[in-house]
């Protein structure tokens, strides 16, 4: 129910986070939907700034619009937690939280949460003995197509499944920003990234969930 409905005293209390009844999602929807209400919100902020001697640029000077424009640019979005959770629920599974099967968004480079994990996927020969595989990776890593994916780590203790990787992928190199150790691991049909529960902002660990698929000796 739209409790705002012209009652701007409620808006004033919400602005101060002092309403006896907190703003619900519908209430915020009403605020966001009505340009007059948004304008009033901005005026309340301006009044407070004027009283406190803060910078008095007006609501119409484009600052907010400029910020919203920049965050709307491709590559600057933060993957929303709820959307990820929704996708995870929709995918179901065995207690892991697969994000998506073949979502192009995951393969776009996008700005993410404070702890960033960059995954560089390298394709290697389909069939190698473990020893040969290691050598082949070393030989071919630079020559093969690499794709970079950046995504937010899962919530503490949670897990994130990468999309299905191209045929023949045998290794994934995980690099990270400060606080996260790079991890190299051997082949698996898909890969997991999980937070180390002892390190909520880092400590990404990787483990395979299943044995590698059997590959023909003639396959590439």
């Amino acid at each position: 129910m739209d409790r705002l409905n012209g009652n701007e005293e409620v808006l004033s209390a919400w602005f101060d986070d002092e309403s006896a009844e907190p703003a619900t999602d519908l209430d915020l929807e009403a605020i966001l939907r009505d340009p007059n209400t948004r304008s009033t919100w901005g005026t309340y902020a301006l009044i407070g700034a004027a009283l406190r001697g803060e910078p008095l640029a007006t609501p119409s000077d484009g600052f907010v619009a400029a910020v919203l424009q920049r965050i709307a640019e491709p590559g600057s979005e933060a993957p929303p937690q709820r959307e990820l959770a929704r996708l995870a629920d929709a995918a179901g599974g065995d207690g892991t939280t697969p994000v998506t099967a073949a979502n192009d968004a995951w393969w776009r480079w996008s700005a993410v949460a404070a702890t960033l994990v960059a995954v560089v996927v390298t394709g290697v020969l389909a069939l190698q003995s473990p020893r040969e595989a290691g050598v082949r990776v070393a030989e071919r890593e630079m020559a093969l197509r690499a794709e970079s994916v950046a995504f937010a780590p899962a919530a503490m203790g949670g897990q994130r499944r990468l999309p299905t990787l191209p045929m023949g992928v045998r290794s994934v190199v995980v690099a990270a920003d400060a606080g996260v150790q790079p991890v190299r691991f051997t082949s698996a049909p898909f890969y997991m990234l999980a937070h180390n529960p002892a390190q909520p902002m880092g400590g990404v660990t990787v483990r395979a969930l299943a044995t590698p698929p059997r590959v023909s000796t003639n396959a590439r």
Partner: protein
Amino acid sequence: MVSIRARRAAYNARMAANTSKTDRGVQDTPRALTDAALVARVQAGDQAAFGLLVEKYRRRVERLISRLVHDPAEVEDLAQEAFIKAYRAINAFRGESAFYTWLYRIALNTAKNHLVSAKREVTTASTTQANDEGESFDLLDGQGTDETPERLLLSQEIARTVEAAMAELPEELRTAIQLRELEGLSYEAIAEAMGCPIGTVRSRIFRAREAIARRLRPLLETPPDRRW
């Protein structure tokens, strides 16, 4: 309910006593529910909700940054950068502190990193500085951050209008909004200070804002291309 109120009053009293003068108007209340609800919407992908948070806190962020960076154009750019960083890191915000407390740290680090990258010495700005003609001005004055004469004139007009509107307010309305905006007191603390119910405080603050807003609206006409 009584026990929650008592805890809140005690908490607000402690916060009121500890509120830094450099951070007036910011109440790190344990129940910043509107901000929390807005953050939740942002985390769900609602960028417009982030716009409300930007609108609410951009001036405080600019004021904070202006203590370290003196170029008005850089202040605005860094303020935008701080909000962009906050948006990108929004999923890392867990609500353990108030949103503005978290934003404050991001803004402060943004300003400091800028100074480090520009190989400038980080110093605390003095509150006054003399220009070439020997006139002094207050760096903390919001008007000092305007970059164009038109914006400076408009800012001055806004400040004068607010001051005039405040002078015309009945004393109880003026006191209520001052306690809220200048002292950062909660409604409950204001109610205790003024000896009236919380609902009366809410009404007085709203009426004060509306009276000031009526005077400001002619100055704040929003062009269609500037709306968000």
